[in-house]
């Protein structure tokens, strides 16, 4: 908790400086070209163990096996989240959480703990720059109720509007994750199991909100964000 403010500041600086190297690229190829330029320019910080463009591409292909084409998410045995457009600082934070077993997930522990800091940065930037359409698999009839919760919260249950932190368009910011286009089933799984799965930096912020939402409210808000582009 005491280091949260400091983490946010440094993460946001890094995130902003990294983002300024990308002129709104939308395609993987462009993102990778920018990434190679970034890495070879030494901006990633660890020039010595910086991965080559080929290594990053191979790792991205590996991520997409489970996370879907263009990282749009995939219904594997469990719902596997969309990573496309996700915040750089959030991806980095989660990969660190898996490696330190602060977020419990055996598969992602194995994925995460072999990644160098430079590779994590490269992957996070590449994934952030992807922008495929949402899979949009939530029930349409829940969207209106979800929109209301998202924008206004549930004051009677002390549930804050999601938009307060995740933004009006649900794109997130720094360590606050993007929710736009996230898989319906994944959002439900996370909100239902919040404190059983997460103990990494900042996850405690969401704990009372996840607890305060009813199953029906969780489904509604998950349906709403699943369609946002």
């Amino acid at each position, binding site marked *: 908790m005491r280091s949260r403010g400091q983490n946010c500041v440094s993460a946001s600086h890094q995130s902003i400086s990294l983002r300024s190297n990308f002129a709104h690229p939308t395609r993987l190829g462009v993102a990778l070209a920018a990434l190679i330029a970034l890495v070879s320019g030494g901006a990633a910080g660890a020039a010595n163990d910086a991965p080559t463009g080929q290594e990053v591409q191979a790792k991205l*292909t*590996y991520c997409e*096996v489970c996370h879907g084409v263009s990282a749009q998410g*995939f219904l594997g*045995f469990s719902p596997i989240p969309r990573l496309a457009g996700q915040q750089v600082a959030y991806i980095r934070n989660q990969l660190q959480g898996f490696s330190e077993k602060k977020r419990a997930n*055996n*598969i992602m522990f194995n994925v995460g703990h072999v990644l160098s800091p430079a590779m994590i940065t490269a992957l996070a930037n590449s994934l952030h720059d992807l922008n495929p359409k949402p899979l949009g698999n939530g029930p349409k009839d829940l969207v209106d109720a979800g929109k209301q919760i998202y924008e206004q919260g549930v004051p009677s249950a002390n549930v804050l509007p999601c938009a307060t932190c995740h933004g009006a368009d649900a794109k997130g910011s720094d360590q606050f994750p993007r929710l736009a286009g996230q898989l319906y089933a994944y959002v439900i799984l996370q909100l239902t199991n919040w404190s059983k799965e997460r103990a990494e930096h900042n996850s405690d912020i969401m704990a009372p909100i996840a607890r305060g939402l009813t199953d029906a409210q969780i489904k509604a808000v998950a349906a709403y964000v699943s369609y946002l582009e």
Partner: protein
Amino acid sequence: MRLHGGLHIALLALLLAAPAHAENASRGSVQAKLSYCKDCHGASAQGFRGYFPIPRLAGQQTEYLENQLRAFIEHRRTNNIMFNVAHTLSPAMVSALAESFHALNPPPIGGAPRGLVEEGRKIFEDGVPDDNIAACAACHGPDATGTGEIPRLAGQLYPYLVKELTNWGKERGQNPSQPDTSAIMSPVAHSLSKSQIEAVAAYVSYLK
């Protein structure tokens, strides 16, 4: 006696060659077709070591079976024998067969090298992160039962799995005008070494 009656009807249906493209798949015609499938795929569809390894269909996911039968017809998956089997099946028959196979649950036939099982279990559950090989369990499930279009691997024949993983890109996704979900497995199959393929095939072949 009821079983016997059912068998009689099935045999009668077979002899009378009930038209496979009929709009409704009657119980008799489904039973006849099932016994035809089991000629090659084994008495309980547990798989059979024929001239080629012939896969276990028992307990397989319904959507996967339907998708593969369509893939043979649409030349997305190349297999001359299965093309001939599949292209006469009505959609109703395809659904009925898929449901029937999904409901079967014989024990695995086994026969894989036991010494490879432990290494295979590790690959299945953890993947090989340094080689960019995803954990099989992420999509096929911790018990390798699969879900939806993602196939069950539990109890599948060792030589069949070795053959599929070795020939993935030569056998599946063969119709460029109809890209399909087989593309998801391409990089995985491509990245696995021969010994890793054998290990993971041995592991799942013993799962019930």
